């Protein structure tokens, strides 16, 4: 996709600022401790990844940051607002793509986009926004007629209607083919170019390595490490780790993309 984006009004990067600040966050469901006292910061204009196996507490953490769920303990500040105290105010400032994105049946992308804008009290050019995520030729389609990648891009479009400073993407590329995944990576990078902060969760290590400035790895409700992908790899190598096979200059995915091309296959 081409990275020509309309002017959005998002302020430029301020390297000192923090987009997200989490202190000693805890959340339990009955006897199950989902989030066990985690603390971390996300800098403004950063792409920050939360990695971890299923049940590690990623989604619970993200949902607390989004104001969808209250924590038991801890402080959370997103875009300068105390989430636990003013969840609705935070919701107005952030953009959210949920793991399973579903929308009303029987409405077109254009109608849904307009509805979301109205909820935020915004007047937007819905056509332009859909064009931005490469869906200009689908504006009169229904969500069920979209491919997996298109659905995710539409989901991101609805997360952009309020021109958010902080964007949450929960497993945005799960289930997508390599072409669609790459396409989404480019979109995420372009959104960061506009000055937004992106927090994403993923199961794909290659994705985290390509996209994220820093990653936190969660397990059992705790953050077990947090650093840039390069530093994490270097630390492992420093411990004397050697991979099962020597990494070559290319891998199977490169072969796949070389043979099938980068063009999206969705129609």
């Amino acid at each position, binding site marked *: 996709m081409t990275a020509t984006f309309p002017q959005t009004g998002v302020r430029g990067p301020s390297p000192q600022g923090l987009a997200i600040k989490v202190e000693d966050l805890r959340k339990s469901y009955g006897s199950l401790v989902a989030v066990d006292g985690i603390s971390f910061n996300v800098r403004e204009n950063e792409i920050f990844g939360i990695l971890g196996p299923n049940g590690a507490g990623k989604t619970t953490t993200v949902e607390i940051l*989004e104001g969808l769920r209250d924590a038991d303990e801890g402080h959370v500040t997103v875009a300068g607002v105390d989430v636990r105290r003013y969840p609705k105010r935070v919701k107005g400032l952030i953009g959210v793509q949920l793991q399973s994105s579903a929308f009303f049946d029987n409405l077109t992308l254009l*109608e849904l986009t307009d509805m979301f804008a109205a*909820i935020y009290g915004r007047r937007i050019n819905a056509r332009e926004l859909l064009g931005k995520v490469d869906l200009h030729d689908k504006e009169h389609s229904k969500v069920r007629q979209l491919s997996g990648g298109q659905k995710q891009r539409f989901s991101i479009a609805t997360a952009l209607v309020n021109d958010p400073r902080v964007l949450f993407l929960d497993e945005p590329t799960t289930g997508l083919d390599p072409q669609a995944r790459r396409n989404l990576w480019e979109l995420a990078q372009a959104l960061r170019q506009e000055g937004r902060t992106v927090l994403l969760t993923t199961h794909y290590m290659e994705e985290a390595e390509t996209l994220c400035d820093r990653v936190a790895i969660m397990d059992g409700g705790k953050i077990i490490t947090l650093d840039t992908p390069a530093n994490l790899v270097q630390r492992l190598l420093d411990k004397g780790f050697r991979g099962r096979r020597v990494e070559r200059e290319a891998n199977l995915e490169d072969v796949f993309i070389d043979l099938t091309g980068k063009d999206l296959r969705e129609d």
Partner: protein
Amino acid sequence: MSRSFRALLSTSLKAYYRNRSAMFFSLLVPLIIMVIFGLLNLGGNHTSENIGVVDLAHNPSSQLIIDNLKKESVLQVDFGSQAAETNALKKGDRALVVVLPAELGAIQTCAPRAVGCHPGPKPVSIPIYTNKAKPQDAQIATAIVTQFFAQSSFVALGQPGGVFKPVVQVLPGQNTTYTDFLVPGIIALSIMQTGIFSVAFAFVQQKQTGVLRRLMATPMKVSEFLAAQVTTRLIMAAVQVAILLFVGVVFFGFHLAGNVVELMLACIFGSAIFIAIGFGISGYAKDEQAVPAIANILVLPMMFLSGIFFTRDSMPAWLHTVSDYLPLTYVVDAIRSVAVNGSHLWNLGTDVIGIAVWLVITVAIAIRLFRWEVV
């Protein structure tokens, strides 16, 4: 109206309007049911005239007349007090009402040489009341009954005329046919079905797929969202009622006697009860498969016990009492009273109170059971 509410309402209406199965069940199915039952015309195909007899004499003469009246194969004879029979006449349940006066069967003695006086049975006037709204039935029944009394006079006196003098008096009333009973029933049934099913299915699905969750991630006002959803269903209910009334009046000769605005009000408040039940079910049901089972446990008994297709008169007393308290009974009775009897809402004490109480109960249950996400 805020812009966000207008947007939520218009998208909700569009989504409903474009949902073919929802439109089929809320608009076409009620019409099909009405056409089927309308064509069956249960209770409407009479081969005899229904007359009421009020016996004020209670003597052998009146008994003889009654026995002979009963032998007339074209007459279906009911007995009752004057008030009850007049009421039945005005509701259209009788072709006419005959009153046998207390002086029936008295013997007349004449003074010597009195002019125009014949000793023997004393002539009496027989009041006959007919319903102005049912002229054809009245005409046929009057002809049969006058003929009957002419013959009886002949038998009693040996000459025609004289003893029994039928005096026909036409009273204002209604002509309540089976259609008049059926149309309000179908209206109540449809607003119940639409209210319960359209809400329960839609919200279980939206809860399961995460549509509601996505909306909760926005600063949307929950009250506006729910108001938009409820308003959509209430508008659909009003459209349903309008279509059913139109078809009822134009194609089935439904006698709409009441105020349409009051009728709509009764329908909308009734619809709100069933919408609340739908929200409760959507919260309680784990998935879409569970919806029809739960909904039908509530819907089917009401459908057959609330007097939708047939009157509840033939029910055993205990069942009648139970059915008195069903929400659909209050709703259909209110609709019937307004539409057919032309009553005003403020005169329908029990039904209006019943609807109000059920609305409070069902909304409270809906608030308790409703869920935004699958837990």
